[in-house]
């Protein structure tokens, strides 16, 4: 019999195997989520520091002077520290929060259960995937502590700034190398994860779980893994070549004749645009890696609380696939002004605009699902609705940036910062929040506090709009991004608005304490969760909360229905579970 793949494994023994080097996808999923939680706290604190400095450029941050005596003498953030904060913030958020939580975290925990499998196809690879990612995170964080300081070349690490080495300025020595190593490791970790997701979805579905009966969340993770597979297998080579340029003296990305810090650099012939092409070939799909799981989560959760089937589930699926496909044809829209052939700008602009068609359709189908529903406004439902709203806001500013003729004005301004924070930052975060509030009972067997959840939601919604909508106004006024201060004459007029954003950001950050409190308190003291608290249909709700180590207690659920059977006459209410004719399992 097959042994490398799924097995009728025995319960894990010993603390290490159970909680640390666990092979159980549920534990690994939680580990990913915990990692994301740590990362998001760090990322958020970094953003507060940045925001504080932008709003109050001459005021000292209490205590910072002691923490970083050189980079922030007297507590006032220096330009290079600002750039370091920004680089680390962007990198941590994009890679270690928005990829780990919605994709690796929830995907790991939920996907195998939703297809009725006992575990992932390759539990050992799965474990490696997490631990490699974890090491990648440590390597990145280590960059804070190296003598030349953390990297300052942004999360996009454009060459040659990122490739030359120390000559290019502070933070571009060891710190930048650690950045590249960290990202390369991260790619390896995610490739192992994607491999598992794909094999599990294709091969380990339980009886009756046809592809068309798969919940859209699982579909989204599956599609995301395919995107990830292609994206990370291009970013990995890019990082390897970057590392070689930095440490081995090659010239992949560094052209000849550069004079940096008064030294003629010993390189020749490399192409900075090559880095940009490789990076964005990964980078644009990466934003879909961050957001597609959110699409899946909303498509999965919204009907549960609307108590009616999702409108046009097949169309949603087709749109997800179309988006995935198109996401590989648009990377050049990040390079309209990079000096590549201007004709290709037009060529990249068209698919970029076309990709808004499937995105618009999905949004309309969600809104159409709310029509005539019997919405139950639980916290996860609210976050789904919030997701729709912020995704619309962010998507619409994409309309501007997709046109080269307007991008000539808006590129490199706060308009872009506002755009991507809405469309991938906040939207993906709302997807994560929806997922946490929704699956928490399944993960920990306890309910989260719904009142606190609603408070968290409402304040967060108001907060993020106050933070990110004004960034569009700044961008329209020509306010450039990646600047640490706007104090001397340039853009001085923008200071009041920056100050408003800062206050809103600190407020929004503080609101997250409600969430953390809820999370920790509910984990320890929350009300006991029933097996199916939301009256949902998919397989994770037909096992116990939390599920036994092999998910269904030795039983293989038999699926007879699609996931979308709401608003019908079922045996236990207005819904029919996917495995409804099967014996329910309790352990």
């Amino acid at each position, binding site marked *: 019999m097959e042994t490398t793949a799924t097995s009728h494994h025995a319960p894990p023994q010993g603390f290490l195997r159970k909680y640390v080097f666990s092979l159980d996808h549920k534990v690994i999923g939680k580990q990913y989520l915990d990692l994301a939680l740590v990362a998001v706290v760090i990322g958020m604190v970094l953003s507060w520091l940045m925001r504080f400095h932008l709003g109050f450029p001459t005021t000292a941050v209490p205590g910072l002077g002691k923490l970083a005596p050189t980079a922030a003498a007297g507590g006032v953030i220096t330009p290079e520290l600002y*750039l370091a904060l920004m680089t680390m913030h962007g990198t941590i958020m994009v890679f270690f929060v928005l990829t780990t939580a919605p994709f690796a975290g929830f995907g790991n925990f939920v996907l195998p259960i939703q297809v009725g499998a006992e575990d992932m196809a390759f539990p050992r690879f799965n474990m490696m995937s997490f631990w490699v990612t974890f090491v990648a995170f440590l390597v990145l964080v280590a960059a804070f502590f190296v003598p030349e300081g953390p990297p300052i070349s942004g999360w996009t690490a454009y060459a040659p700034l990122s490739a030359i080495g120390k000559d290019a300025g502070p933070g571009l020595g060891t710190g930048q190398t650690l950045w590249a190593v960290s990202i390369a490791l991260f790619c390896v970790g995610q490739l192992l994860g994607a491999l598992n997701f794909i094999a599990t979805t294709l091969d380990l579905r339980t009886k009756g779980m046809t592809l068309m009966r798969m919940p859209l969340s699982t579909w989204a993770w599956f599609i995301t893994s395919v995107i990830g597979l292609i994206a990370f297998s291009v970013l990995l080579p890019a990082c390897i070549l970057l590392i070689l340029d930095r440490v081995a003296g090659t010239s992949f990305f560094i052209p000849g*004749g550069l004079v940096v810090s008064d030294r003629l650099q010993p390189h020749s012939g490399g192409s900075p645009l090559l880095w940009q092409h490789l990076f964005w070939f990964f980078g644009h799909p990466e934003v879909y890696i961050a957001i597609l799981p959110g699409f899946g989560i909303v498509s999965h959760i919204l009907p549960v609380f609307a108590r009616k089937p999702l409108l046009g589930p097949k169309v949603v699926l087709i749109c997800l696939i179309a988006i995935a496909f198109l996401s590989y044809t648009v990377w050049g829209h990040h390079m309209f002004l990079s000096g590549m052939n201007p004709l290709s700008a037009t060529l990249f602009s068209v698919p970029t605009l076309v990709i808004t068609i499937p995105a618009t359709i999905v949004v309309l189908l969600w809104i159409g699902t*709310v029509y005539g529903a019997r919405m139950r406004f639980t916290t996860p439902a609210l976050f789904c609705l919030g997701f729709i709203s912020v995704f619309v806001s962010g998507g619409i500013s994409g309309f501007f940036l997709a046109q080269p003729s307007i991008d000539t004005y808006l590129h490199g301004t706060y308009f872009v910062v506002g755009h991507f924070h809405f469309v991938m930052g906040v939207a993906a975060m709302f997807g994560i929040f929806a997922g946490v509030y929704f699956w928490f009972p399944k993960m920990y067997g306890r309910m989260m506090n719904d009142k606190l959840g609603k408070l968290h939601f409402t304040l967060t919604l108001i907060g993020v709009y106050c933070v990110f909508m004004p960034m569009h106004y700044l961008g329209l006024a020509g306010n450039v991004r990646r600047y640490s201060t706007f104090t001397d004459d340039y853009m001085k007029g923008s200071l009041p608005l920056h100050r408003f954003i800062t206050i809103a950001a600190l407020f929004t950050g503080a609101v997250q304490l409600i969430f953390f409190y809820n999370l920790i308190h509910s984990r320890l003291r929350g009300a006991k969760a029933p097996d199916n608290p939301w009256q949902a249909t998919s397989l994770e709700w037909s096992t116990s909360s939390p599920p036994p180590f092999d998910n269904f207690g030795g039983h293989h659920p038999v699926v007879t229905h699609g996931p979308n059977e709401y608003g019908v006459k079922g045996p236990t209410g207005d819904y029919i579970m996917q495995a409804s004719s099967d014996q329910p399992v309790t352990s």
Partner: protein
Amino acid sequence: MGRLFAVVLAVITIVSAAIFIARIWWLPPDISVLGVGIDHQMTETMIASGVLFVVCQLVLAMFVWQYGDAGDARPIKTFPGGATPMVVIATILVSAEILVLTLVGTKVWGGIFLSPPDPSALHIDVQAEQFAYYFRYPGPDGKFGAIHPELIDDGNGNFFGLDPANDTAARDDIVSASLVIPVNKPILLTLHSKDVGHAFYVPELRIQQDFVPGLVIPLHFTATRLAKEEIVCTQLCGLGHYNMRAYLEVESLGQFQQWLKDHAP
């Protein structure tokens, strides 16, 4: 709770849109020939996407307001016509919008980046470095001296690495830290970088372009009004990025010629 959300969403939408409409923060006045087209395109897009934004948000808010679960036995309703008509209409509308924007936009874009510069354009060579710009005028001979990276020395002011001792074309090159140009005259810049990536951005000219090390990138425009504006770097170039700026000075032809004379080496 649903109704609270609906109200919050509606307020957010209306306030956000109102600020756009009131143009409290808006593009600075444009001073270039091509700016008109870009501004037009911007307004067009703003209207189209503004309508989409407001409609989507308000319809969502309306449905949320309307369709909460009141615990009664009200049956669910499907969206009129189901998914198909909605999908078809959305596809047609968005496609049409895309088509229009692309057709109009390509013309504007082409005017900046696809059309050749006017043959009579004044050619100015621009070098960006950490964290400054230097502008070079060819001088009376109309020719630029060759660049020798190994001769670049900021200490003695040889920013371009010129070799006037051996290179006659280099002798009369005028190097300046601000970009001084005559009004209503087509300008051709050639952008190159000494070290890392930088960018050239003048919001009032509605123009932005990266400097890519190893490449020489042409950029052309015509300023239509006397002005003194800032040129800012929008490509992260290191710790002094936030401070990498220079002035663009648009002068009358007479003033400009005088300026050239005054600055001849």
